[in-house]
């Protein structure tokens, strides 16, 4: 891969899922860790349920932009939005996908089907380093906590650019409950997700 000292993370989802919240945490944490960072967000009308993506880059000579095939990590908070970003992945990418669907209008009216999430996961398993699927049902956990759990599961992975101890400090300042779930997701990712077999 061209980026020897740069890591790029893409967070994709729908307005209201906390994408900006997650990128804020990562930015603050990397500042603590002394890693230069940049963020570019696309959220035209996010409050109104549109697609939101946030690309975060870590390391010198990168400024928050991800080229095609340039995302080392994909944090997909919504499966259809994860599929939409497929072109940014490369063979060594790690994708963490929450498969809880948010149905777009066209699907609601029945004019198009919702994409087959299972098939997409299979496609990723064949083509990227690792696919992690967040469990559909997380008993006793409020839906708003899902995003911090997804972040925790992602941060538990090898080559994640920011040490989770720095993230702990930032999340801890926001809410002890968020920290609890984040920590638990980092330490026990399998409680919350299924790991796909890597192709290697």
């Amino acid at each position: 891969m061209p980026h020897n000292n740069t890591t790029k993370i893409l967070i994709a989802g729908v307005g209201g899922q906390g994408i900006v919240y997650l990128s804020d945490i990562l930015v603050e944490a990397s500042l603590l860790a002394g890693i230069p960072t940049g963020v570019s967000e696309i959220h035209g009308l996010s409050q109104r349920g549109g697609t939101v993506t946030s690309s975060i880059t870590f390391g010198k000579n990168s400024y928050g932009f991800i080229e095609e095939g340039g995302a080392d990590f994909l944090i997909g908070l919504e499966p259809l939005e994860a599929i939409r970003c497929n072109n940014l992945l490369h063979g060594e990418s790690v994708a963490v996908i929450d498969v809880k669907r948010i149905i777009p209008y066209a699907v609601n009216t029945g004019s198009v089907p919702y994409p087959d999430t299972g098939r997409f996961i299979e496609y990723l398993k064949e083509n990227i380093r690792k696919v992690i699927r967040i469990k559909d049902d997380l008993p006793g956990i409020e839906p708003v906590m899902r995003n911090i759990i997804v972040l925790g599961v992602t941060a538990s992975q090898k080559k994640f650019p920011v040490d989770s101890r720095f993230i702990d400090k930032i999340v801890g300042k926001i809410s002890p409950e968020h920290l609890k779930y984040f920590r638990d997701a980092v330490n026990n990712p399998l409680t919350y997700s299924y790991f796909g077999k890597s192709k290697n």
Partner: protein
Amino acid sequence: MLKQTIDILTSYDKPKKVCIMGNVAVARAAIECRVDAVFSYPGTPSTEVSEVFNHVSEFQGKPAHKEKYPALTSYPVYFEYSVNEKIALEKAIACSIGGKSAMCVMKNVGMNVASDALMTITYQTIGAPLVLVVCDDPGCHSSSNEQDSRYWGPMASIPVFNPSSPLDACRMTKDAFVLSGKIKLPVMVRMTTRVSHTRGMTVYHSIPPPMSSHAFRFLPEHINIPARTGLAHKKLLSRLDDPLCRSMLKKYCVQSSKGKNEKMAVISSGVASVYFREISAQNNLSGKLRYMEAGMIHPIPENEIRKFLQNGCKKVLVLEELEPFIENAVRIVAQKYSLPCKIYGKNFSSLTVTGEYSLDIVRDSVEEFSGIRMLKNKKLPVLPDDLKNSVSPRPPVLCAGCPHRATFYLLKLLVPREQKEMILCGDIGCFGLGALPPLKMIDTIHHMGMSISMAQGLYEAMKSEGKEQKTVALVGDGTFFHSGISSLMNAVYTRANMLVVIFDNRTIGMTGHQDHPGAAHPPKYNELDIVSVVKGLGVKSVETINPFNLRESYQILKKAMLADGVSVVVAKAPCIFLTGLNLKKFARRKIVIDPERCNSCANHCDMSLSCSLPHTQRGNLVRAKMKIAAHTQIPAQEQLCPANICNHGFLNAIQTGDFKSAVEIVRDKMLFSKTCGDICHRPCELFATNHVSGIVPIRSLKKFVSSKNGNYRDFAHPIQRARSAKPNGKKIAIIGAGPAGLSAAYDLVQAGFQVIVYDKENKPGGMVTYAIPSFRMDKEAFIHEAGQLEKMGVTFHFKKVLGKEITLEELSGANDAVLLAIGLNRSKKLEIVDKNVPDNQKWDVLTFLKDFHLNRLSLHPGSAVLVIGGGNSAIDAARTVKKLSPMNIVLVSCIETSDAMPAFPEETGHALQEGILILHDSYVQKCTTGTDGKISIDLLSYGTKKMLSRFECDYVITAIGQESACAEFSPLDGQYLDENNRIIKQENGYTGYKNIFVAGDLCSGNHMSVIGAIAGGKMAATGIRKFLGNYSYDYEGKDGLERLNRSMPARQAETIIINGNLAEITDQYNLYQSCMKCNHCIENFGCPAMLRVNGKVQVDMDKCTLCGFCIDVCPNDAVRWEMEGM
């Protein structure tokens, strides 16, 4: 926000590294320059700059903060959201002239509004520094155009900085303040979305103490008169040549030291510089080509470009988004200094004028330009097609709970969209989402504030075409104050004919809830009342509605739409973000959808039965509209049809204007749409007792839609259904081709049975053919309807008399089932008449009517005729006598009082109008025939037995009912018969004897009417299906039939003659029940909290804001509140 505000106001003596958004960097830079006042109009992508100052201003204004944070509050920054960009810039200019440094912030298109102020101030002078921040939007993420604001530089002759990153934005904004203060010109910092909204590393420095400022100076430059402008222009141009300006050009157009003697060169500007830097680092391009970043782009960095391209540069690639601004400058310089350098820019490789650049675009174009192979990530294999194709876009929609949805919905109910007659002119703002599906209630959107002018102009344009059609302008509250207000003034002034709907959600919603004059937060701002403003402009008709109050708002909007001249409706309800999305936490209730009612048919259990109600969006909208607009709300089960015709669907089809479908809905159940329109007993109307405000005149409507365009003649659909039915190998004989037998045959043949009908006459129709006179019904239509069964595959054997040519036993043996439906064809006799009147002077009513039908009657004109009986046949006979000759004298004697008379009230009404005398509560006590042939009659009161009248007549017609003759030819006797010799039925018309069923008048207890016969025939058909096979459903019209059989009409319904505007009649009613052909909510208003799962709609409680709108509009009444814990 508090944390960010404190941070941004804090002076850092030791520089602090931060990662912030470009827009925040601009704001911080202004604070480090001690800006005194900031003026803005919100607009993406510029909004975050002004938001910083909005928070700063709020923070510094709080008395508690003054104590707690003295250092942060001692130098307050004035901030305002001005009414529009022009005012913002004008005030910023004034502030600067008054000696206070100012910044004015807006988006690209805002600059157009402000341009008048900009174009002239440059000829004059400012005082303190004035920086203008304008944010462009390549790719149009949230703008109505992709204009390139860099051109304001040459246009207005002002310096322009063009940052590439947050760090640049910070440095350049600071220098912009310095430069502006020196050369006394406004200086522009031109941002783009990708610079404004990208977060990057930058540094917070110390904030110096404020500089001493001067007050307003009385200078001749402040007065602009033509005599001075020529000179002023020269002076203006010289200011751009200021040494500070030149040194800044040098500072921000710097050439990289490596590779400066190479033959290839790249010049970049804006975010393209950042892309190039990354590509260059990745591919070690440094030293392989010359490179310059153009950060200050006006005045044109002529010297810098010349120096850069001198000494052997053969070709240069210019990387910049939008217009070829730098590229053209490079071309000018190259031409001017005869530089032998080829220039590449727009249209080279994938470099375009439109849209945003990206790392990929820049990498590919540099590769193509330089021939240097670039590193590229290997992409994944292409997604399988089915996955790729199902990645549907996720267009933004109005938020769950948005009051605009209710306003649009009301408009949707009022403005028919099929005809496209009324034009809806929309405007900028969140409510512009109303143009997208599923609302689609906007026809035009242009620039901000255009809607009201658009509607005026279109009205004039159409008027000159001869179409004087009111136009509608839709405008948000913020936009109204921004620029709609002057246009409304123009509308009043020029006598426009338009409705203006102001979508007043109490904020500027689109850009994140800023104040505007109509929704301001005191004490800082003073709120203006929109209604008073509108009235003050001279609008006479001004109303305010709460759009969630649908019924009342509907009527108000409807009235406003009909009003002449300019009318204004203010739809006032706060943005859902203002009322607080957390309402749910306090509400002890939630919204639930009953799946039994949602998208469910209340008329059928057997879903294989044909339903001809087409599923149309309009049909469902009309259903929902009636729920809001109709003043008479009737549950459809109260206007039941014994034949189980879906009256709800029938009315809905008519309200939609689809008369053909209405006829087909009748045909789903029976042959006789036109006939029933003429002579149905209409139990649906007569027994709907719960509604004092009126009932739906089903029969009149049936007559209307059947006759319209000869609809009743077309039987293509039922014939097609019968022909395509899968034969089940079962054979049914039906004896009697009257309404009962034919109706049974109609259902059975469509269910795949082989059906053979026997009748003693020579054509189908039975008693109706001759017993009802032609002035009461369309005989030709009846014959046509009755005649369709043959085409549907039913076999007829005519001239077969039961007991002679055919016997019940034979048919029972030869068929799987037999239906006996021969009616009661023997009139009852009145003994006193039978004994005392000679045969040539008396008839039973059936013989009389049949003779009339066959044209066999010959009465002397001027005859006196007594008709005995109170039913429809008696009145038919009486009216027939009058038809024979108006000179005939007709008297009807019946034992019932007038309100208990079984004949239809309108029939007796006709009779009375025709001069027929009706003697109620009377009976013949004595009857003798004299030698002169005159019949002498004594009539007594039935109640008191007192003598009423004695008179003479020529003829007597007895119409006291019919009786069965079946004992004579049928094996069904004794135990199978009731006291009137009618056959007692068991369940669903089964006689209990072999495989024989009974229907119609012959069946004991069955209502003696056409609809009674039809329903009885249908019920027997159901019985036969259950008897012979696995059919599991009961007769679905059972309730209606039972009600018909047991009750007398409780009230008299008026018959409406439809000849005027049908809508005037039908729009009064909502005959509602849940319907399978719904999906109204998903198709018509698209609340993001409503999802369709397996055909049923569900509420996503995570998104639901408990606005309750869906409850009010669901035509199925499937949505309701549920209290928590219930």
